[in-house]
């Protein structure tokens, strides 16, 4: 009887192999760019500028994305300054831009998005 119970326990353990969840990756929360603004005069050249709450928080670069409603953001490029100019070559209406900060740990923060004023 004891052997039967032990065997049953082994069978149960063998069939239950989903294990535990992984521990969370220990990284610092990257800051989100603030006061993000997009301006344009001709809908071809867009001027993007933003601020960061804590500039000394080990942010190494910013990622700039273009965004059309209903689509995922498309990476336009990276910069280490807090202002950038994007040229779309042709007139583009209804476009938005997003920017995110990347830390030295290579972790990208949340996006801050805005459209042309």
């Amino acid at each position, binding site marked *: 009887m004891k052997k039967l119970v032990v065997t*049953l326990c082994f069978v*149960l353990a063998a*069939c*239950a*192999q*989903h*294990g*535990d*969840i*992984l521990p*969370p*990756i220990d*990284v610092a*929360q*990257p800051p989100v760019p603030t006061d993000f603004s997009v301006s344009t005069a001709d809908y071809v050249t867009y001027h993007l500028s933003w601020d960061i709450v804590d500039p000394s928080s080990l942010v190494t670069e910013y*990622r700039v994305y273009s965004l059309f409603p209903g689509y995922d953001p498309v990476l336009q490029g990276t910069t280490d300054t807090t202002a950038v100019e994007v040229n779309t070559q042709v007139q583009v209406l209804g476009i938005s831009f997003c920017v*995110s900060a*990347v830390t030295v*740990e*290579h*972790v*990208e*923060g*949340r*996006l801050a998005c805005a459209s042309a004023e």
Partner: protein
Amino acid sequence: MQIRRESNRESNKGRRSQVWLRPAAMALLLLFPTHALAVDSAFLRSLIVPGLGQAQQGHYTRSAVFAGAAVATGVGLFISQIYYREAANKLYAQKHIYASYQETLNDGGVVSIEDMEQTYKEMEASHNLAEDRLVWRNAFLVGFVTTYAINLVDVLVSKPYDPEHESRLSVEMTPAGVKVTKAFRF
């Protein structure tokens, strides 16, 4: 000469293998009453299909109960196992994705904190789902094993149905009045 030696060896081997059978048979005789040996055919039937041995013994109600319980728990076990595996596979895939984030960071690649947090939330949800489904799976497994075990014990201890000893409907006149008795077979 060689052949005789071989045959002696074979017969010794056979004798040795039969030695353990005697105490085993004695133990069986002690454990189960002698009438249990007469129902070995019913035991084998119940061993293969729960309730079949009881049907052979003439206990049809018990046979239906055991067969029904075995089918219900067996089907429940099968379905709950499928659902559990589905949740476990989903969890495994999310664990794999989450582990790949750490590898990407170690290799110098950039990982979005939103992606990491989203995957972690999904991983937690999948883990909870897998735990819940495991409880159901184990409940059905225990139910199935218990039904099967009780079915075997029942077929061993119960005697074949004897219609001569069946209690039929009886009417008895007593000083208090008429007493009607009906015994039900289970």
